[in-house]
């Protein structure tokens, strides 16, 4: 079995981290598998992505066992293996849903937070983990957690390293929905299928706008909206949206 499994259901692509015996800890093979999955996710016939983990865990971050045989410079490792995937994930111009089935810890938490929507099983846990072994949040953890939770809550959480349950994570707004474990993938697929039927090019542009919004000046954001709206009006989905509205029928969007 490959360390990262890819499957398709219609326009939805499911990426499953597949090292269940180590709670899907990240090693070189997982990074490589994730890289090719993210590459494939750019294909125009994929219109929504679900990321999940096999077995009991979502992803517990760096495989510390790997460090026993191969230490090397962690900075180089982050730049070479982690960063390209974090950037590639954010660059996917379609909705990416994390179906968090179990523990999301360390870089696994960063991975979940890099997705656009998080759905969790009731037994899922969210653990910054880094601080507990004297490290700092990496692979985008400091960036995404701050944006999702705000500075005050991010500081308290990332510096205490305490484990957050799924309901707590939902109360904080980190997680959109909490469902029973056996329903998690079904719910995630349902949401992904709904989103995949939307005008996904406009979803991609909205994603870019939101990514920019946190650091942009209002003038620049307005200008970007004007340029992207002009691009959106050139899509087939916009024509279909207007036509279906006028003809009082359900639209059939294609993502183009």
């Amino acid at each position, binding site marked *: 079995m490959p360390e990262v499994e890819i499957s398709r259901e219609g326009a939805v692509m499911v990426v499953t981290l597949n090292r269940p015996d180590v709670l899907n800890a990240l090693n070189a093979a997982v990074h490589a598998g994730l890289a090719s999955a993210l590459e494939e996710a750019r294909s125009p016939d994929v219109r929504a992505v679900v990321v999940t983990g096999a077995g009991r865990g979502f992803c517990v971050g760096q495989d510390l066992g790997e460090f026993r045989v191969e230490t090397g410079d962690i900075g180089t490792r982050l730049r070479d293996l982690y960063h390209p995937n974090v950037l590639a994930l954010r660059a996917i111009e379609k909705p990416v849903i994390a179906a968090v089935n179990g523990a999301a810890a360390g870089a696994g938490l960063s991975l979940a937070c890099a997705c656009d929507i998080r759905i969790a099983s009731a037994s899922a846990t969210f653990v910054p983990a880094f601080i507990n072994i004297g490290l700092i949040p990496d692979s985008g953890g400091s960036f995404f957690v701050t944006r999702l939770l705000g500075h005050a809550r991010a500081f308290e959480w990332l510096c205490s390293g305490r484990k957050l349950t799924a309901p707590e994570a939902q109360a904080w707004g980190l997680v959109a929905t909490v469902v029973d474990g056996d329903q998690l993938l079904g719910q995630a697929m349902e949401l992904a299928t709904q989103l995949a039927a939307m005008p996904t090019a406009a979803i991609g*542009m909205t994603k*870019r706008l939101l990514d920019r919004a946190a650091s942009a000046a209002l003038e620049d954001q307005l200008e*970007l909206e004007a*340029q*992207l709206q*002009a*691009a959106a009006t*050139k899509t087939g989905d916009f024509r279909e949206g207007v036509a279906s509205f006028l003809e009082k029928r359900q639209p059939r969007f294609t993502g183009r």
Partner: protein
Amino acid sequence: MSEELVLVHRDEPIATVLINRPKRLNALSDDLMDTLVRALQELDADDTVRCIVLGGSERAFAAGADIGELARSSAIELYYARRIERWDAIRNLWTPLVAAVSGFCLGGGNELAMSCDLIVASESARFGQPETGLGIIPGAGGTQRLTRAVGKALAMDMILTGRMLSAREALSAGLVARVVTREAWLEEAERLAREIASKGPVATRLAKEAVDRAYEGTLQLGLEYERRALYLAFASEDAREGLEAFAEKRKPDFRGR
């Protein structure tokens, strides 16, 4: 020739010239440069063209020189072919030239973009001078124009390490004038070109020359040049028209005289 190396589209008062060698990421071969220079000179000679947009494709403005062609040439052949000197023709154009850069803008591509009057960059643009990685150096203005545009520290970083700048970095470094969204890289450059084309053509040319003077000679000479250029602009019919239209709160009708 099966495919045109350069596509020209006129939409008065502007013209758009696109480098079209998609299979080679718009690598700038001798043939291509000759065709490009001829196309630009032809548009430059046409009074109805008041601004030119020079672009590539969404994937690449131009990824650099044609390395294969370069590798086959000897130094003396390059010297006698006056290969790089041909680029000077672009600097000598009168018509304002806007580079619309999307995707890779590397080596000779970046030098070509810098030869234009200003650069509009797509968010996807990447600027770099990777020549030293191939054991050569920039030869069409890279060491000089990049240094003037972004300063010594960043120019050294880019040229000595091959570091590529993102569009945002290029904007804050002063290499590009505007960053626009990927979807609109050409439209926004054309919109800017139309803004330029709507101004007085005599004044635009004089202003372009005067700005170029800022990088040649002393400040004193530059100021002197600017003042004389203003007097000359003032003597134009367009200046009369522009000032009158302003007073009468109407749009000026510039004739380029």
